[in-house]
């Protein structure tokens, strides 16, 4: 029996996964891009006509699309910033308390396992007008003047913030765990030396700890940024994009354009632009801050 050489063997091992991703991810993407140049009737095997960049122009001229794009960027920035600040604070808290706090990190894990649909519905219930427990408790401890003072999900001015809460609740734990693991690798001598020099805690955080954690933080921010920009079910289940489209992000708009308004061509053009921008932003971020594999060489 003839043995294949290492290169061929490695390629054979990768082939099944590569074929799978080519067929079920790359090929659908090709079809998406092709569809974006056509006006397509929503009925199966209906007529299609080539319209060139018509769908793109239509999308870019519509306030719905530009509004949803701005909201997606805002939502992503909000979720990632909140998770980073809260996650860092929790990770520092666990580190300051040492090994005895390890058991309690488990409590931090549990939301990660909950379905976004469940989290969305749960928070909708917690924040609901009239019988939401959050407003009730906030008014009882005197933060709110009355239980109906804030319409979390019914006020268009704040709804984008409200729909982000379950997302932040679900995955701050991820940020905490990743940053905590990074903190464990900060050499003790560095901290000790800074402490002996009498460095104040705040400058220790910003001058020493955060710079040392940069690669870890970069990974966590990129991973979470990508996921937050894709958010779909967690928002759909809370508000369906309303009120007055104030919580409609790109994923929701594309879905509704495709399914409810039956315009696959326009939806494909929107999805193509969304994907291209996301890939560009993520690639730039990966290339300049993270560079996976670079550490190995």
């Amino acid at each position, binding site marked *: 029996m003839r043995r294949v050489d290492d290169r061929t063997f490695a390629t054979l091992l990768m082939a099944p996964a590569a074929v799978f991703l080519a067929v079920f991810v790359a090929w659908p993407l090709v*079809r998406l891009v092709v569809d974006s140049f056509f006006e397509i009737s929503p009925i199966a095997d209906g007529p299609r006509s080539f319209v060139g960049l018509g769908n793109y122009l239509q999308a870019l001229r519509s306030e719905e699309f530009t509004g949803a794009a701005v909201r997606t960027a805002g939502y992503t920035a909000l979720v990632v910033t909140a998770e980073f600040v809260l996650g860092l604070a929790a990770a520092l*808290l666990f580190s300051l308390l040492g090994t005895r706090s390890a058991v309690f990190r488990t409590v*931090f894990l549990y939301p990660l396992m909950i379905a976004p649909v469940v989290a969305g*519905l749960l928070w909708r219930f917690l924040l609901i007008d009239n019988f939401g427990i959050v407003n009730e408790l906030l008014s009882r401890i005197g933060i709110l003047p009355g239980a109906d003072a804030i319409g979390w999900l019914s006020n268009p001015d704040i709804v984008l913030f409200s729909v982000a809460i379950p997302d932040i609740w679900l995955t701050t734990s991820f940020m905490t765990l990743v940053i905590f693991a990074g903190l464990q690798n900060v050499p*003790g001598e560095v901290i000790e030396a800074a402490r002996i020099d009498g460095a104040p805690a705040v400058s220790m955080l910003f001058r020493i700890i955060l710079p040392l954690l940069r690669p870890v933080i970069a990974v966590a921010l990129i991973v979470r940024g990508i996921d937050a920009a894709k958010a779909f079910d967690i928002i759909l289940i809370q508000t369906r994009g309303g009120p007055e489209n104030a919580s409609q992000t790109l994923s929701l708009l594309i879905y509704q354009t495709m399914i409810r308004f039956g315009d696959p061509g326009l939806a494909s053009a929107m999805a193509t632009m969304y994907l291209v921008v996301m*890939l560009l932003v993520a690639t730039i971020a990966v290339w300049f801050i993270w560079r996976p*594999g670079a550490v190995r060489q």
Partner: protein
Amino acid sequence: MNGLVVRGPGTRALLWSLLVAVLVLYGFPFAYLLLTSFKTPLDTIAVPPTVLPQHWTTANYADALSRDGVVPSLINSTTTAILSTLLSLLLAVPAAYGITRFRTLPGRVFIMGALVARMVPPVAIGIPLLSMIRALGLIDTPAGLAIAHTTLSLPLSIWLMASFFEAVPDELDEAAVVDGCGRLTALWYVVLPVVTGGLAVTAIFAFLASWNEFLFALLLTSVRAQTTPIVIANFQTQFGLDWGAMTALAAIYSVPVILLTLILQRHIVAGLTLGAVKG
């Protein structure tokens, strides 16, 4: 342990109380979901709401489980998640091994490609995928949905398995090959037993990706293969805002995976943080 640990007793007491406050706040939403699932329908929508049930009842659970499609949906969720996990591992394990052990150019290109695949929004490939799954005759079946879910879990599985294989010294399988093992035999009998912890973590993440997924389930299933997240979401339209039954079903669906997490938490923490700490 590093030098960050604070030693002053006063500061420590303050930090501990802060931690307790944070944990209570963080744990409250799900605790409230569980408590609500034991309330009577009137208690559930009482104004003002109360934290604890006035009368404890398990009626919501009986109600949720007796509804059309609920029990089949739990079976569908389980079948789909198991199929998708197996498919994901079957594809990811050899691929990750090929990438980390031989370090060829195609391998480096492929692992970056997997990262790009992770960025694709499901909504972008949903419709083309729908017509492909339909062409394969797998529409509204757990197998069809499992294929779609694997597009989500496979990139992550490859990355996770690659980082676990990195931790195994090359000499281990080289020695096995020198001893006359075939390379596949060496992978199966020598390397895989060393990374069982990593396999478990990867399996859990693949399982959860499918178990909790919503959009593909919405697009690719209608009646026969419907999974529980769709049924939970439908509770709110089909039967009015029925929070009692909804919270009960959400609890039934979430508690097993939360318990699983608690049991396997050390492995999961390792899996979550591995890539990041290495990078």
